[in-house]
């Protein structure tokens, strides 16, 4: 029934999705048979390409909904957002799994990954990102596991998970804070090669804040799409509530971004005539300032598609920022250009297609949205308080 609904709303969707997913697999096989040189346009002057920019930098940023929502619901007791915690955590889990898969494709010799696990270099921000991403993926799997246990009706593992729920959530937030900021830390070593408009000693902080902002934005985008595709009834105030916090975070982000240029006396750069200046203005005006203005207006927040559009701007803004820092404004060797090989696109797109497919399957077979009515939230259920793990059957009113 829901199936047909989704088909009607996105005709051809699954066909295109399958094609892209299969093509991605073909490209991955080719890459391992013939090496990176044959399957990418990477070179010594540009050793990182779209797999790092899109799959790692953007993938991790856009999966930030998992930890921001977990913090809101479990730590700061914003019960209202319970309804979207499951999809947020699922997206994060699948997102991180794909990040890892993409990195395994990108690594020259991924079969030696165990060497990294055994001997990480503690001075390397990339090592920190790598370790945190692996650990956090495990944490996300555990955070999401109750939804699966619930479906299978396995009560014992459910109980175990429930006892470690809060430590898990805290670990997830901590790991996320560390690696979201360390992605900016990785760029700190580009002090001679990254354009000064973006290079800053506070890059880790900027990365963290923008990740916190894009987390809820991503949840809005995804929630809007899935509720259209699957006809879930998401309380309007849930998504618009998320929309309300975004301008605050973006405001802090903007203040740091501008403040940094002021403190380092580089504000003049944003009025210079280099082509990077335009990129900077596009990013700041359309990715930060405009969504700040839009999302501060109740009329936008209350309107499903306007809310979707404004949140989409935040997502695009962060994407542009990560692309710029890891690609456009980064000159590893002077005058070496890079444009991805079609197989690089195919792999990235293929992995996204897999992610979408898995999210769709989960939406069909698992209970993804707990409808947290206000009464539910105030239920005096002190000890076994509602978690991701609460079975809708067990919660009163369901």
């Amino acid at each position, binding site marked *: 029934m829901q199936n047909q609904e989704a088909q009607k709303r996105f005709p051809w969707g699954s066909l295109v999705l399958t094609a892209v997913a299969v093509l991605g697999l073909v490209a991955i096989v080719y890459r391992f048979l013939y090496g990176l040189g044959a399957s990418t346009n990477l070179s010594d002057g540009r050793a*990182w390409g779209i797999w790092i920019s899109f799959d790692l930098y953007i993938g991790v940023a856009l999966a930030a909904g998992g930890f921001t929502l977990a913090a809101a619901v479990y*730590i700061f007791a914003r019960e209202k957002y319970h309804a979207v915690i499951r999809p947020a955590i699922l997206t994060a889990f699948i997102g991180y799994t794909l990040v890892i898969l993409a990195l395994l494709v990108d690594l020259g010799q991924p079969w030696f990954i165990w060497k*990294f696990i055994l001997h*990480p270099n503690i001075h390397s921000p990339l090592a920190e990102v790598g370790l945190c991403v692996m650990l956090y993926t495990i944490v996300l799997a555990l955070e999401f596991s109750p939804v699966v246990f619930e479906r299978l009706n396995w009560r014992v593992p459910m109980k175990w998970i429930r006892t470690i729920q809060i430590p898990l959530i805290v670990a997830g937030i901590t790991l996320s804070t560390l690696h979201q900021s360390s992605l900016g830390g990785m760029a700190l070593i580009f002090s001679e090669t990254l354009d000064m408009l973006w290079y800053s*000693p506070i890059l880790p902080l900027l990365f963290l804040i923008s990740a916190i902002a894009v987390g809820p934005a991503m949840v809005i985008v995804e929630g809007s799409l899935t509720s259209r595709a699957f006809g879930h009834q998401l309380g309007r105030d849930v998504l618009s509530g998320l929309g309300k916090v975004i301008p605050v975070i973006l405001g802090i982000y903007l203040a740091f971004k501008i403040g940094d240029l002021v403190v380092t006396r580089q504000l003049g750069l944003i009025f210079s005539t280099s082509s990077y200046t335009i990129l900077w203005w596009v990013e700041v005006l359309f990715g930060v300032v405009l969504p700040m203005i839009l999302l501060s207006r109740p009329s936008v927040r209350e309107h499903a598609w306007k809310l979707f559009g404004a949140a989409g701007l935040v997502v695009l803004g962060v994407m542009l920022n990560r692309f710029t820092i890891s690609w456009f404004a980064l000159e*590893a060797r002077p005058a070496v250009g890079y444009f991805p090989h079609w197989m690089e696109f195919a792999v990235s797109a293929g992995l996204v297609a897999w992610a979408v497919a898995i999210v769709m399957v989960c939406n069909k077979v698992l209970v993804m949205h707990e409808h947290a009515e206000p009464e539910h939230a105030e239920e005096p259920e002190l000890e076994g308080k509602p978690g991701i793990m609460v079975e809708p059957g067990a919660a009163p009113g369901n």
Partner: protein
Amino acid sequence: MGKGVLVDLTKCIGCRACQVACKQWNELPVEDTKVQGDTIANPPGLSGKTYTTLAFKEVEHDGQFHWVFAKNQCMHCQYAGCKTACLVGAFDKTEFGAIVYEKNKCIGCRYCQMACPFGVPAYEWWSRTPWIQKCTFCADLQSNGLTPACISTCPTDALLFGERDDMIKEGKQRIAANPDKYVNHIYGEKEVGGTAWMYLSAVPFEEVGFYPMREEPVTHNVDNAMFAVPFGLAVVATAMTGCYFIFKRRRKLAQAKSRSGEGK
């Protein structure tokens, strides 16, 4: 202190003996090359098969024509970006200051390539099991008290090898003795915190491919950020746990209040 090299670009005659010596000593494979339009540099740059090349630059400076032959190789930084970046610590610094790569550790993330401010580490892109390749400063020769192959081969003494401090002194002396001949700068003395390989030139350095760089090592901000990580971890974990209990208690209080309200 570490060893250093003073490259006097005015003394180089462009014979490329250093290139050949490097290939031989390090047993590097030949490279398929072709003649390029605007330069006789060959091969065109560092690669997975070539640790050092000469760039041939035609420069007009102070109304005079200069044909400059600029040897390129790993600079062997005192604060090496590649070494800090590598997530498995495949780079090590020898006692005499060579930055050496150990392939047994490498997993091929190529962060070292991105992290090097001079674009030095190269990759075996053609291979199914690729490794990083870069100049070793002939660490094997040096550990036996010998001079790197390129340097002992140089017929004009354009490459001078010794203690790094002495090389700086020598460079300053040459500039002082011939202020008209050299630009007043030793490239590599202070750039990105100092490099083992240093250059003297008759023409501005950026004209021959040595770009201006800050004195701050590329590792500076990274080290600070990584130093902050354990504290960040502790602060976030504590704050989150704290907030959890505070908000939990608040909720309890609110509930108790509403219940006593109902009781009335």
